[in-house]
């Protein structure tokens, strides 16, 4: 424990100074009762946390029906995203499907085209796993330089949830995948009938058909009653309200894998089927929403790191804009393709900081700078911006999204 946390204090217990009325006067919550156990059958956050909400950016999209909102990363700790705060990206609003009306069809290159009810799916062997889901467009605003002054908006198109469901391969095996099959089309039951082509190899590897998130039923905005879980891959392929799985020998060139979710490079060509989310990290406190208000002394620097290729091996943090780096403490051992919390406990001397974090994943891939990505791809890539993020902390503790030269 740092010396700063236990240093001697003048006057301890001596009775000097003005007593704090919050201690010397009986407070209402100590003098009288609160609500009883029948008041909130499904509990809500306390009113003092009313600012901890998903936020959308009105100028991002034409309307709020095909639109996105953002997870308030600045207000969270640990690694789990509470269900009520998981960012939403819908293309035709939130489908509301009565569970008894839910059907899943498997057809195409299979021995036995099948239809499942929700109850049917729950009869396969179940597993639970925590995975991050990051939109490929997360941080995409920053391709052209610092735009949004808040970690909720720069990095909030991500959440990390513990899913319970069944392995996709078990369900596909029930239908009997034909040898010619190479690709899977996954399709949603929403009014956009969201659809993506997924290589069969991935489908048979670690994908899940999930019906629970963080212990309870999937939320409607996350695909109730059933979503596809595609660990480590861009969020757009995690089809919600999953209604159909079709096996085929070639991809389908859906709108979301041609017009969108392709990465336009400087030479005018575009990368397609860029599924994996590469290693990335961001400091969530201090951050623009979390200025330092306590002045000098012990300061907890904290953030999140993740990689679509597996576990996070290490995270370094710089206080001086990249001149020197030190190892952050990884809290616990997050599973593969899940958010990893990191901390660096420092003694702040009150001088300005230029904070960055840099993740390294189990494959040895090192999170690059934004400049390095721009040199390789140009400025029009829109997706897959996983460059290191800089927060400038000024003398009074205020924090701004900046870039350095």
């Amino acid at each position, binding site marked *: 424990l740092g010396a700063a946390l236990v240093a001697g204090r003048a006057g301890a217990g001596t009775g000097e100074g003005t007593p704090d009325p919050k201690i010397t006067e009986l407070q209402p919550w100590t003098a009288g009762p609160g609500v009883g156990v029948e008041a909130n059958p499904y509990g809500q956050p306390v009113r003092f946390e009313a600012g901890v909400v998903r*936020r*959308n950016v*009105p100028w991002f*999209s*034409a309307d709020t*029906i095909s639109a996105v909102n953002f997870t308030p990363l600045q207000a969270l700790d640990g690694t789990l995203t509470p269900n009520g705060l998981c960012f939403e990206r819908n293309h*035709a609003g939130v489908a509301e499907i009565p569970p008894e009306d839910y059907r899943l*069809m498997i*057809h195409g290159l299979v021995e036995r085209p*099948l*239809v*499942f009810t929700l109850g049917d799916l729950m009869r396969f062997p179940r597993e639970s796993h925590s995975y991050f889901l990051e939109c490929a467009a997360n941080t995409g605003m920053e391709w052209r330089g*610092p*735009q*949004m*002054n808040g970690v*909720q908006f720069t990095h909030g198109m991500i959440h990390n949830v513990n899913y319970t469901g069944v392995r996709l391969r078990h369900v596909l095996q*029930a*239908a009997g995948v034909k040898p010619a099959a190479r690709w899977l*089309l996954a*399709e949603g039951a*929403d009014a956009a*009938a969201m*659809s993506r082509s997924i290589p069969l190899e991935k489908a048979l590897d670690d994908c899940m058909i999930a019906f629970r998130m963080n212990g309870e039923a999937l939320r409607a905005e996350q695909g109730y009653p059933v979503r596809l879980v595609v660990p480590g891959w861009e969020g757009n392929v995690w089809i919600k309200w999953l*209604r159909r799985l*079709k096996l*085929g020998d070639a991809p*389908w*060139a*859906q*709108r979301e894998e041609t*017009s969108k979710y392709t990465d*336009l490079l*400087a030479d*005018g*060509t*575009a*990368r397609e*089927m*860029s*599924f994996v989310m590469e290693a990335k990290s961001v400091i969530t406190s201090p951050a*623009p929403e979390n200025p330092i208000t306590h002045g000098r002394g012990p300061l907890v620097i904290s953030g999140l790191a993740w990689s679509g290729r597996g576990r996070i091996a290490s995270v*370094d943090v710089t206080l*001086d804009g990249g*001149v*020197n*780096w*030190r190892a952050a403490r990884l809290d616990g051992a997050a599973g593969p393709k899940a958010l990893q919390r990191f901390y660096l406990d420092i003694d702040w001397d009150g001088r300005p900081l230029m904070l960055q974090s840099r993740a*390294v994943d189990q494959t040895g*891939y*090192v999170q690059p700078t934004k400049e*390095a990505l721009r040199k*390789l791809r140009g*400025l029009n890539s829109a997706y897959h911006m996983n460059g290191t993020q800089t927060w400038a902390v000024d003398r009074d503790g205020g924090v*701004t*999204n*900046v*870039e*350095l*030269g």
Partner: protein
Amino acid sequence: GPVGRAALRAEIAAWNIDIRPDGAGLPPGQGSVTDGEALYAEACAACHGDFGEGLGRYPALSGGQGTLKADRPTKTVGSFWPHLSTLFDYTRRAMPAYQGQSLTDDQVYALTAYILNLNDLVPADFTLTRQNFTTIRLPNADGFRPDDRATAEDPLFRAPPCRQDCRTAPRITARASPDVTPDDAN
């Protein structure tokens, strides 16, 4: 008994809406640019503009050819999309926005023909059919390549990173504009 039940032919037919670039999945039918123009004016122009130029933040469906290397590319069916099948597939499943699967197949053929015409890819008297569908090649058909990050980029990012005295003292070159961030964020 076993889990799940056999999918019936009529059920598969009802949900089997996907179309592939090779034409697999195309339904019987046809539609002319002229029919498409009328339908487009009624069902699409309010969002996408009279000429597919896009209104507000609703996407443009035409134009932008030659802009893919520009400072601000315009990515449309004409300038960016590789396959016509995607236009048929997406219009049928998702457009007009938020009225999923409301168009007839002939209407989708006609709208597809009209959007091709808006992009100067077919003449005004053109009729799109299941038969001639795969003869249409979009300008940017060759503009895509598979994900090559693992070979083209990742090796650059696999060196153990510098941790001491890595660079000269940095200075701030750009700051986020407070104007774009929603005001209740802090």
